[in-house]
């Protein structure tokens, strides 16, 4: 696969990787704990989007079996192409995990603010260095 092909055919992946790195960069580079949590969210979102991308089948429609009046209670038309529903289902769980993580992280950030009087990591580290 040459470069243009890789860029055009896999553009979604490139985008996801970029998004992911943005998230990771924020987690690493920012001192503010809330911003770190946001970075973490972006990072997770990229992974979730990855699953969603994966589920896409070319020409596929939503995986809902259409009602066929000719065969009540039977299976739908066989020529319909569906997108893969499984990754979406998985992502529902992953989103729940992400929400829980964010909630916990924010709760911890509140506690840190209460204990240190700051939400900045570098200030908290300096405080620890001073007070042991």
């Amino acid at each position, binding site marked *: 696969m040459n470069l243009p092909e890789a860029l055009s055919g896999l553009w979604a992946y490139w985008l996801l990787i970029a998004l992911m790195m943005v998230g*990771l960069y924020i*987690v690493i580079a920012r001192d503010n*704990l809330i911003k*770190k949590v946001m970075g*973490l969210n972006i*990072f*997770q979102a990229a*992974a979730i989007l*990855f*699953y969603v991308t*994966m589920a896409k089948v070319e020409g596929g429609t939503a995986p809902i079996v259409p009602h066929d009046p000719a065969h009540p209670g039977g299976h739908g038309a066989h020529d319909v192409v569906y997108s893969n529903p*499984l*990754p979406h289902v*998985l992502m529902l*769980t*992953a989103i729940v*995990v992400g929400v*829980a*993580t964010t909630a*916990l*992280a924010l709760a*911890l*950030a509140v*506690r*840190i603010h209460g*204990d*240190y009087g700051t939400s900045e990591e570098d200030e*908290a580290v300096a405080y*620890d260095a001073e007070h042991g």
Partner: protein
Amino acid sequence: MIEKILVLEVVLPLLAAPVCVLVRHPRFCRLFSLGVVAACFAIAVALLVEVRGGGVISYQLGGWPPPLGIEYRISTVNAYLLALVTAMALVIFSFDSRGGPPRVPEQRRHLYYAVFLLCISGLLGITITGDAFNIFVFLEISSLSSYILVSLGGHRRAVMSAFYYLVMGTIGGVFFMLGVGLLYQETGTLNLRDIAARLEPSLHDRGTVLALALLVVGISIKLAVFPLHHWLPNAYSFAPPKVSAFLAATATKVSFYLLAMILFTIFGAPFVFEELRLQAVLLPLSLLAMFLASGAAIFQTDLRRLLAYSSVAQIGYMTLGLSTANATGLAGGLVHLFNHAVMKGGLFLVVACLLYRVGSVHLDALAGIGRRMPLTSAALVIGGLSLIGVPGTVGFVSKWYLVSGVLERGWTAAAVLILLSSLLALVYVGKVVEVVYFRKPAETQPIDHVREAPLGMLAPAWVLAAAAVFFGLTTNWTYGVAREAAELLLAGGI
């Protein structure tokens, strides 16, 4: 019969957690959670007995057959882990910490037990399930609850450590999720055995290799493999002592199982260790962990931090067993899971005893404590000797097989380095023992009021200390099971 109750292993603690939340009575919650853990332990032992010698038990959740449905599948490998986790949980739960973690008021203590149960449920779920995405869910359940548990430590830095642990853990979790996604893309299935069976033709795809990389790095963060270990020393040294004991004895062990299972069962030893030569990375990292983390432990002045760094070094021994990829070495790594759980769990319980009576485990505060708390100190010495690997303790058994496995591979230099690294353990253990027994207490910190720890604390610590000697002298059970598990893993089964 046994397959019917198998699912209870995970469901019991999972349901017990909301029960605790509803009942809100701290004493009840304590005894109730102890009972639940005891039941889990009984089930795990029954499972282990059942599958010894190559048996397999499969349970289909909701009656959906695999590969579509989620399958719980027990073989010697994960039965061993289940027994290990529940046994440690049982001993540590029976430790009477007299008032729970410092940050939790009496009327909220039931939540603490609920979180503890959730953590156990997650750890058992990871071990028991045969579905890749299910593993991710349980991984996050156990991780989220361990972040909470860590944050309950008395010191303000406990919360900061928990936050840091959360960031690292979440990154690891996302890596794991991405790896599973790529595997799904390659094979179109989430059932572990199904993935393993279908991966063969696409083993050399870039996607597969990337999946392997993501999975290994993701789990390595949770396992605290050097150099991804930075969250661990803080988390272990600021968590409530009982939590440190629990996490040190169980959480990293389950992560190790996960790593081994993914490398051997899904990707297969020939691909990982002969084609990709993962040992070329894993072995140096293990050795570095053993030397640098032990070296860092020597310079710690706080007993808990010292033990935490020693944990990083001990994880190095486990991954070293992994990188030999032969039955002896892998069995050595697996048996070290149990052995390290016993000794480090015991040592952290000793720390809890010391904290309760002395109020600090800074080495200066422990001077001469050996006379005031002889039994606690003796347990400390036994655990310490085991860390060094003195014959007659569990540490020796691990080392024996690890070195044998390494020698089988012909890595003589690595064998020498393993033995040398235990001398670093000698230095930091020796330092502690000298302070405890031979240093005179400082004038500013009189220890005359210090008494021996209460029985409810001492007994669990001594159970583990005694186990460290007992299983150092009879290895039929531990090594027997570990060997069987190692052979099963090398053959690609679970």
